[in-house]
């Protein structure tokens, strides 16, 4: 048994996940300190999303432990709904609730889960919408917003719950290129404010600039990790180098057999 590090925001030990015969995560050990921003990079299918989804138990790990703020989420007796409130998650496809207005999206879980009063939920929602630069969109419906605006509402929705950790799974991959900057800007601000963040991304410039640490995954294991200057700037492994050359200069990539 590894010792629990109560100072860590997220601690993962011996994490494995298989879908039937397909082993997607094959032993992940890894920690995120409070206030740290960690970017996870790696080729498609390497298990990045699965890792992130194991952190808030959207996927049930096959083996291993996940701790958030010292509480073991993989404990079968833990109140998973209570534990999840402390972990915000932002999805590639936004997943806003289309039948609710922007304000409704940001207040519903505050009201139903945290049992906040209507006024308090409303105030916190508006504060967080200001934070993501969408104070003027409170009454709009998701279908009336651009992808970038929807994603920022999704961030506000997660922030309104007051999470200790925020998970981002390729938050800009579904966006038109000119909208990516708005979302990354909000995330950068969040990082500066000291939020603990775990970000799966293909935006290397964001990782280089904002991340305290970059983790490169391939084939369900962590291949290497370290400061961005090291992992992105001067990777130790050939697999990392090959991946980075393909991401940074897609036109020059060689066709793989």
């Amino acid at each position, binding site marked *: 048994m590894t010792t629990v590090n109560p100072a860590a925001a997220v601690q993962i030990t011996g994490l494995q996940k298989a879908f039937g015969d397909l082993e997607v995560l094959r032993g992940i050990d890894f920690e995120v300190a409070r206030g740290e921003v960690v970017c996870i990079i790696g080729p498609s299918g390497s298990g990045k999303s699965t890792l992130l989804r194991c952190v808030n138990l959207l996927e049930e790990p096959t083996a291993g432990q996940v701790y958030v703020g010292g509480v073991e989420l993989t404990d079968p007796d833990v109140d998973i709904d209570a534990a*999840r409130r402390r972990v915000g998650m932002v999805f590639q496809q936004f997943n806003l609730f289309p039948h609710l207005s922007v304000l409704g999206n940001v207040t519903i879980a505050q009201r139903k889960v945290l049992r906040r009063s209507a006024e308090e939920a409303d105030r916190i929602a508006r504060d967080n919408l200001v934070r993501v630069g969408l104070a003027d969109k409170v009454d709009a419906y998701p279908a009336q917003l651009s992808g970038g605006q929807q994603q920022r509402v999704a961030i506000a929705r997660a922030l309104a719950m007051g999470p200790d950790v925020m998970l981002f799974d390729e938050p800009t991959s579904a966006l038109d290129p000119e909208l990516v900057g708005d979302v990354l800007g909000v995330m950068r601000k969040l990082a500066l404010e000291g939020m603990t963040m775990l970000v799966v991304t293909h935006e290397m410039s964001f990782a280089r600039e904002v991340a305290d640490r970059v983790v490169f995954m391939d084939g369900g294991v962590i291949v290497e990790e370290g400061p961005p200057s090291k992992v992105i700037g001067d990777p130790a492994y050939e697999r990392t180098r090959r991946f980075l050359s393909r991401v940074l200069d897609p036109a020059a990539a060689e066709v793989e057999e």
Partner: protein
Amino acid sequence: MTEHAEAAPRLTRRQRRRLILGGEYGVFVVAVVLLASLANWGTLKTNFAEWRVAKTLFPDIITVGLRNTLLFTVTGFALGLAAGLVLALMRLSSVPPYRWFAIAYIEVFRGLPALLIFIFVGTGIPIAFPGVEFPGGVYGQAALALGIVSAAYMAETIRAGIEAVPRGQMEAARTLGMSHGRAMRSIIIPQALRVVIPPLTNELVLLFKDSSLALYLGVTLQQRELTKIAQDVTGQQGNTTPIVAAAICYLIITIPLGHLARRLEARQKRGQR
């Protein structure tokens, strides 16, 4: 030169189209004239549109017949909707016995004629369980029979609606700390119900028509719905006009409702894009 002479009498495409269209209209006009001259207008009018008979229907056909038809339909629909929602959730449950029960119910009651259910409720239950009192008497029986019939259809419709809500919606709700049940109530079911409003409107039209089967429940004069009144008065007066009057009462409701269902459906299709 000879080729040209042969080609000359052939019609152009436009001429041919005109000729065919003219022929079709001609046949139609001949058929109408023929039918109109053969029909015995006097007999038809006295049998199907006799004002004297129609007058005896009022106001009962509206204050009793249409009122009861609407009452049976609405209570049956409400019961069917509630039961259908429960069955749909059971059908999607992770607990196998619930699933089996829902599947069995849906398979059985979709496969039976509505009339058999009415006979079961009206005649079978009182024989099998002597002394059973239905709340509301015939009204309770009609609501139960219509509810039993429609619940099976509505369960399948609602299940499809729930399954049409993208998986990410449940994931987003759970990520915010909602329990499965809370996510269902606040996020999934409201979206599913929107999707199923058009098919449920169609189901309402079907129920409105099936409510006529209540005449097999053994109703008093004040409990008769449209069809029963039409049947009774037709028999008493020896005239078909009451059936026509009842038909008009049905169509006044079913045609607009059917149109509404199609409009809602079209709007939803547009909204999805």
